[in-house]
């Protein structure tokens, strides 16, 4: 087969001498008349390389520019048409903007047509030319030729700025009342644009809407429904006003299904499916939360749902829209069952598109009709094996939504299998989903630990940073599982250090529970026989492996240090390793080693107390100010300086800043630590801490300096927040809010609340960046009044990528026992375009459902 473009036929033809001759006449010895568009296209298509094409275009652009300069009226339209072609290929064409205006002002329809097209393609909203255009459009809206009027409407409806819309709304409104259906349909869409640009002009179109639905022409009906939909979505008053149209809409819909064959609107045997879909969508908005309107449309929805012929896509499109409407309005329960069953039937459809929309809509309804969706679980799980990534993604999301306490084991088996076999793009999301589901519904601790380890071994390098501290916390709290866990982890990393999160968790556990490993006591599993030296061998291999990251090495060194109090006959070997790394080129590692060295040499009497096993984090009720420091497990010595003794919390200076900023004592500061933040000076801190411990007599809760930051926090976490599963029976349907939007940085809050523990609100923040440069070192801080308690989990990243190409997510848990109105102050710091940015904001627009 010949490719029309590219490597075969046309290139060869282009290189034939005769054709070069023809075109060179146009390009090289061009006479006063510029070459035609078709000729230019033909010439460009002869280009063999990108460079050659660029050269041709540059040459032609130069010619066009000079023609523009000469104010050549005859060929202006031809030149602009050529510019539009080049623009499509990606070449700059702004210099044609003014020429478009001149064309619009011309008397000829041909000129106007290309001029308006050029204006829509080339002009941007900031252009001052808009001012100049307003007049032309105004004249053309009143032109005697409907096609000129149509062009003006189309252009205004595409690119009209708010000023233009204000100036021309009157004309649009007039055309909306004309009897000419060609103009009327365009005026309706133009009105939608006007309303979007200048919402307060909406009222102006209200009188004209009166007769819109009496129209016979389907084009006008279609666009009128679009206009009504826009007005209803924008204003509750309009919504209430237009509810009276429900009977009329129902009648139109009924006529469409009953009317039989009408050649003009027939599509595969169905009468105007586009209009049907549009009406069903408007009905959805009108029936939402309104019993009377819902009642009025129940019958027709049932009729459409049962009578629509579904052998073709058009029929399924209508059926799909009907299902969505049924699910969204206050429909009868029988109808809802019918709707879910239709979706269940869709899941078995051969057409992948139908299966895809079925999964998408089941995902939307899974919260409200959980049990009905649950019935289709096995079909949904089967979709995980689909070859189509779009379907796979939806099936994965839906599978996670269907996991509950009853099916957790079976579902996790499927999802773990999926995690193993799926494309890399799914792994991070799938791993997070499994972690979350396991946390919510784990039937036993052993199962929980096994599941997380399965994830770490199958998709270790894809898991998100917070997985490591979370798992370590889980392991610490499962005292009876320590021996089992450390043995499993030891075996898991034998000879394979590639999965960094796995190695980190393993190193931490080996350091913490090395004695259990060597003693060979394990009730859960066949114990393994390892010697102290073998264990140290493994950790040392991690230290020297070139697959290990700096963070992993930190874990390994700390683990080795801890083993100095857990092992009996290898202390000298440990001393040696520690002293070797005292001169490591990795500063982080070096500092750590130097500190540990000092511990051996100067403070040996305290070593065993300092390196004591981590305490189990028990639930402790604290009423005083709380402070939570989170890192993603980065092994920096942060805890050495930020850790207050449990009895007398002292906010760090950073906390004080935020405290000041909130202007009073009745607030609870929370200091998150961004993943990249490092303490300013850490050298002397160890000594400070040691001094401190000396004074306070080192209570059992005083954590070892070498431990992982998060775990080393005193057990002050909000009561009930740390260990209780949060997400059982989530209350959903809480609208999300935009908490902050400035300088291209946008922060959105989405809410979840647990039904079982309604005083907890889980807020997920999403920061996105619409500017053209990344925002780096992004730190989000938040504070709430004292009646609340707040916990800020670590962010997914510290970089907000440009062009909205990604988001940072961070979870905030708020404990609000008194159900008071939620208020929050937020502080944002980041670097952008080379300068440090900082901003404060107050968030007061929390939806009532998030706190009532």
């Amino acid at each position: 087969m010949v490719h029309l473009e590219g490597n075969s036929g046309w290139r060869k033809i282009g290189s034939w001498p005769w054709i070069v001759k023809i075109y060179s006449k146009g390009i090289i010895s061009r006479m006063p008349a510029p070459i035609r568009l078709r000729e230019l296209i033909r010439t460009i298509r002869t280009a063999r390389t990108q460079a050659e094409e660029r050269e041709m275009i540059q040459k032609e652009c130069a010619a066009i520019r000079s023609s523009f300069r000469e104010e050549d009226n005859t060929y202006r339209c031809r030149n602009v048409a050529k510019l539009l072609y080049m623009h499509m290929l990606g070449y700059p064409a702004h210099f044609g903007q003014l020429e478009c205006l001149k064309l619009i002002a011309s008397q000829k329809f041909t000129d106007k047509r290309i001029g308006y097209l050029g204006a829509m393609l080339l002009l941007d909203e900031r252009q001052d030319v808009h001012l100049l255009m307003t007049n032309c459009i105004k004249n053309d809206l009143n032109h005697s030729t409907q096609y000129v009027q149509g062009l003006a409407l189309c252009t205004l409806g595409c690119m009209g700025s708010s000023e233009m819309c204000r100036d021309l709304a009157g004309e649009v409104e007039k055309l909306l009342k004309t009897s000419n259906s060609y103009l009327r349909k365009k005026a309706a869409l133009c009105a939608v644009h006007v309303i979007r640009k200048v919402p307060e002009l909406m009222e102006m179109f209200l009188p004209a809407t009166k007769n819109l639905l009496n129209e016979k022409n389907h084009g006008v009906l279609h666009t009128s429904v679009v206009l009504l939909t826009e007005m209803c979505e924008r204003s509750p008053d309009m919504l209430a006003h237009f509810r009276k149209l429900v009977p009329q809409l129902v009648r139109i819909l009924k006529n469409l299904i009953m009317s039989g064959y009408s050649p003009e609107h027939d599509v595969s045997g169905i009468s105007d499916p586009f209009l049907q879909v549009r009406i069903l969508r408007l009905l959805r908005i009108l029936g939402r939360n309104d019993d009377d309107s819902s009642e009025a449309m129940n019958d027709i929805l049932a009729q459409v749902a049962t009578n629509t012929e579904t052998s073709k896509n058009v029929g399924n499109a209508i059926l799909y829209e009907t299902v969505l409407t049924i699910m969204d309005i206050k429909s009868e329960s029988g109808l809802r069952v019918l709707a879910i069953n239709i979706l269940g039937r869709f899941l078995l459809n051969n057409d992948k598109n139908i299966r895809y929309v079925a999964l998408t809509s089941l995902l939307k309804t899974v919260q409200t009709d959980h049990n009905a969706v649950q019935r289709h679980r096995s079909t949904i799980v089967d979709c995980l094996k689909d070859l189509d990534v779009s379907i796979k993604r939806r099936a994965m999301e839906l599978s996670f939504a269907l996991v509950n306490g009853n099916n957790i084991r079976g579902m996790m088996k499927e999802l773990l299998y999926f995690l193993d076999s799926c494309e890399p793009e799914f792994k991070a999301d799938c791993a997070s989903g499994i972690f979350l589901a396991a946390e919510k519904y784990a039937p036993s601790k052993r199962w929980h630990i096994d599941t997380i380890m399965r994830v770490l071994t199958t998709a270790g390098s894809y898991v998100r940073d917070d997985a490591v501290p979370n798992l370590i916390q889980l392991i610490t709290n499962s005292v009876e599982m320590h021996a089992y866990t450390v043995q499993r982890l030891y075996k898991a990393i034998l000879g394979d250090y590639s999965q960094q999160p796995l190695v980190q968790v393993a190193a931490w556990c080996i350091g913490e529970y090395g004695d259990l490993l060597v003693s060979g006591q394990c009730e859960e599993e066949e114990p393994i026989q390892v010697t102290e030296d073998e264990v140290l061998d493994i950790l040392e291999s991690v230290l020297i492996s070139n697959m290990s990251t700096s963070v992993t090495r930190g874990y390994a060194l700390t683990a080795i240090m801890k083993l100095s109090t857990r092992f009996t006959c290898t202390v000298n070997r440990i001393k040696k390793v520690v002293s070797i790394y005292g001169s490591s080129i990795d500063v982080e590692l070096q500092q750590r080693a130097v500190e540990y060295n000092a511990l051996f040499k100067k403070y040996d009497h305290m070593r065993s107390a300092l390196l004591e096993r981590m305490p189990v984090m028990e639930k402790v009720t604290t009423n005083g100010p709380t402070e939570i420091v989170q890192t993603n497990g980065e092994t920096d010595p942060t805890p050495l300086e930020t850790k207050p003794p449990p009895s007398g919390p002292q906010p760090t200076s950073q906390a004080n800043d935020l405290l000041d900023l909130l202007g009073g004592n009745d607030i609870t500061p929370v200091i998150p630590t961004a993943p990249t933040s490092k303490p300013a000076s850490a050298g002397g801190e160890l000594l400070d801490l040691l001094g401190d411990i000396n004074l306070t007599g080192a209570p059992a809760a005083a954590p070892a300096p070498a431990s992982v930051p998060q775990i080393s926090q005193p057990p002050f976490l909000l009561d009930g927040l740390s260990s209780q599963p949060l997400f059982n029976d989530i209350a959903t349907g809480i609208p999300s809010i935009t908490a902050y939007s400035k300088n291209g940085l946008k922060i959105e809050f989405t809410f979840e609340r647990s039904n079982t523990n309604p005083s907890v609100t889980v807020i997920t923040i999403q920061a996105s960046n619409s500017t053209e440069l990344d925002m780096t070192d992004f730190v989000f801080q938040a504070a709430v009044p004292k009646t609340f308690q707040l916990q800020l989990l670590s962010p997914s990243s510290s970089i907000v990528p440009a062009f909205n190409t990604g988001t940072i997510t961070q979870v905030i848990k708020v404990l609000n026992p008194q159900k008071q109105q939620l208020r929050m102050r937020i502080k944002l710091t980041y670097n952008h375009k080379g300068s440090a940015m900082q901003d404060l904001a107050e968030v007061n627009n929390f939806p009532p459902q998030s706190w009532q």
Partner: protein
Amino acid sequence: AWRAKKIQAILVFNNHGKPRLVRFYQRFPEEIQQQIVRETFHLVLKRDDNICNFLEGGSLIGGSDYKLIYRHYATLYFVFCVDSSESELGILDLIQVFVETLDKCFENVCELDLIFHMDKVHYILQEVVMGGMVLETNMNEIVAQIEAQNRLEKSEGGLSAAPARAVSAVKNINLPEMPRNINIGDLNIKVPNLSQFV
């Protein structure tokens, strides 16, 4: 920035990613437009013909709130980038309407028609979609309005007084000199199954 709900872009490119129609209903700087076309092409290209016609929008056009809905005809991909304001299945039908309309206006449309009549393709699209919203889906109506406007243009002498069907001109002059191994039939690539909706 807040975005109006509408079709964000309509892109047509061939199997090699060469753009044949680029129409954005949302403002993007020129470079971004080109990047979006490229990204969309790469996203669509790696999909088999037997998998579903929806995919989550590329990173540039706005992430997962947006969907790319496409159909592949012979050498051309027709891609609509839409948000929740449109029915996914409805857009598939709309693409079919657009292509069938092109077929009626160009009498057996092929890629060359789109190349040499870029302006006309835009005019046809303008009668189907306006400002990112569906305007008309009745093919006969669209064709009638387009023909009336073309007659009006012709009465003024037209854009360039070039042969009305440049494509056929190209085809004709080339034919005698075409190398034998090129299958002429392929130059006029038909849109398959046009008579029925799939």
